[in-house]
């Protein structure tokens, strides 16, 4: 029973981070109709940003997160403004091709610049944990989980309460009417993609604290984000976080009761299931 509780806690802590990874992907997908295959690469870049801010700059990884988010926001904003705006709302295949190409470019640039070595962001408190009724909770994992939930809440409030958030939702729901009432879609798209990239950057930094980063982590994380975003619903941050928790718990349970090598089978099995069960939701967003 204690083992089960421990695994459940591990799954929840991991799942919060998964949810954060998927938030940015779901936002961009829902508003721009772009399935961003380079989303995992943006997570990877966020991981390296926090890694170098910590190792070279001596900045605590959690303090470095906002800096990485600003960097990724600017990167995403410019990427959208000068490249992706050319293909926004065009045929889905175009968006898949161009973001796949970007993914390849980012991965090989990362390999060139950062080498293929495993990197871990290892602050002094990385090994410490608290014990709650026999269940061990590592501080770093707990902090990563709380940051993920916090950012999801901020995103929800931003979309729900602010003028710009309303314009983002309006553009996603009815582009014609949004333009009619003075919304500039190009600006909204760039802001949205920048926000998605910033969330990816935060997720990458946290991923580097609880796991290891290489230039190649993005592919798996893109696929997981894709599954979670669909499970959670693209326009509901809370749903996406719940989707992340579901996947995190499923993976942790698989690792315990079956075999750790099966965990990716769970996420990719879910991917296939989702594609079979909800094709309309994936394709019907033109």
């Amino acid at each position, binding site marked *: 029973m204690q083992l089960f509780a421990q695994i459940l806690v591990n799954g929840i802590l991991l799942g919060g981070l998964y949810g954060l990874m998927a938030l940015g992907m779901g936002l961009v997908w829902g508003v721009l109709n772009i399935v961003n295959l380079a989303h995992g690469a943006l997570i990877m870049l966020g991981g390296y940003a926090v890694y170098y801010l910590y190792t070279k700059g001596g900045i605590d990884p959690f303090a470095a997160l906002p800096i990485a988010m600003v960097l990724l926001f600017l990167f995403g904003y410019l990427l959208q403004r000068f490249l992706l705006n050319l293909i926004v709302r065009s045929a889905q295949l175009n968006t898949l091709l161009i973001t796949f190409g970007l993914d390849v470019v980012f991965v090989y640039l990362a390999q060139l610049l950062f080498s293929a070595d495993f990197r871990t962001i290892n602050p002094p408190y990385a090994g410490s944990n608290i014990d709650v009724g026999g269940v061990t909770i590592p501080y770093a994992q707990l902090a990563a989980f709380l940051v993920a939930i916090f950012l999801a809440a901020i995103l929800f409030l931003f979309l729900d309460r602010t003028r710009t958030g*309303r314009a983002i939702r309006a553009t996603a729901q009815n582009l014609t009417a949004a333009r009619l009432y003075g919304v500039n879609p190009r600006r909204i798209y760039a802001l949205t993609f920048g926000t998605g990239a910033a969330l990816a950057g935060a997720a990458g930094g946290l991923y580097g604290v609880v796991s290891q980063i290489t230039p190649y982590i993005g592919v798996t994380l893109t696929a997981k984000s894709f599954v979670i975003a669909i499970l959670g619903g693209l326009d509901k941050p809370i749903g996406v976080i719940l989707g992340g928790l579901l996947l995190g718990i499923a993976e942790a349970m698989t690792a315990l009761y079956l075999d750790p090598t099966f965990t990716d089978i769970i996420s990719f099995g879910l991917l296939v299931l989702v594609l079979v069960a909800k094709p309309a939701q994936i394709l019907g967003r033109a």
Partner: protein
Amino acid sequence: MSAPLLEIAGLSAGYGEVPVLSGVGLVIQPGEIVTLVGSNGAGKTTLLRAVSRVIAGRGTLRFDGHDLLTHTPEQVFGLGLVQVPEGRQLFDKMSVEDNLKMGAYRRKDEAGIARSFERVYELFPRMKERRTQIAGSLSGGEQQMCAIARALMAAPKLLAVDEMSLGLAPVVVDQLLAVLAEIRKQGVTVLLVEQDVFAAFTVADRGYVMETGRIVREGAISVLSNDPEVQKAYLGVQ
């Protein structure tokens, strides 16, 4: 007579190589309700698109002293020419209140926006009751109210309403027409583009009849509604 609010003369416009409008003339004085009627495909919506600069046009196009032909759609909107588009085009998954806030998206005067909210909720008490409801779940008539209310939140000088009556019960149309009369009393000029000629004539001061891209009749409603041709073609009088 004061300077017209909207002045269209010799306007030609179309889509690509296909001309739709040829030599259209239409004038709206401040404070008027003017209706543009005609059957489906006559070019009424094309005229609205040309006026709001969504499609290119040639001729004279002046609004409130500005030459619209040198303006972008955003600038035309900024001058106070606001449309209630055909099919309402609400933000379906947003609350009524968020839809109204989107109408005021380009306004910065917080006090003015608050006053507009009060006025709009006075005009449409139903919208106040339903302000937290999702717009897509409203009835057809309420959705049209929401669309008009959203346009009023942009503080228009000229409100151009496209096919307001489409798909609505006559009793609902009557309520909306009464609201248009009330809006005019508050100083907003109205251009009502309608297929339902009978309904449009009950509220308008003057009317224009459009057929295949040309204005074929114009005048006061009292004159138009006694015109045998208009009666035969649009009012079902034998």
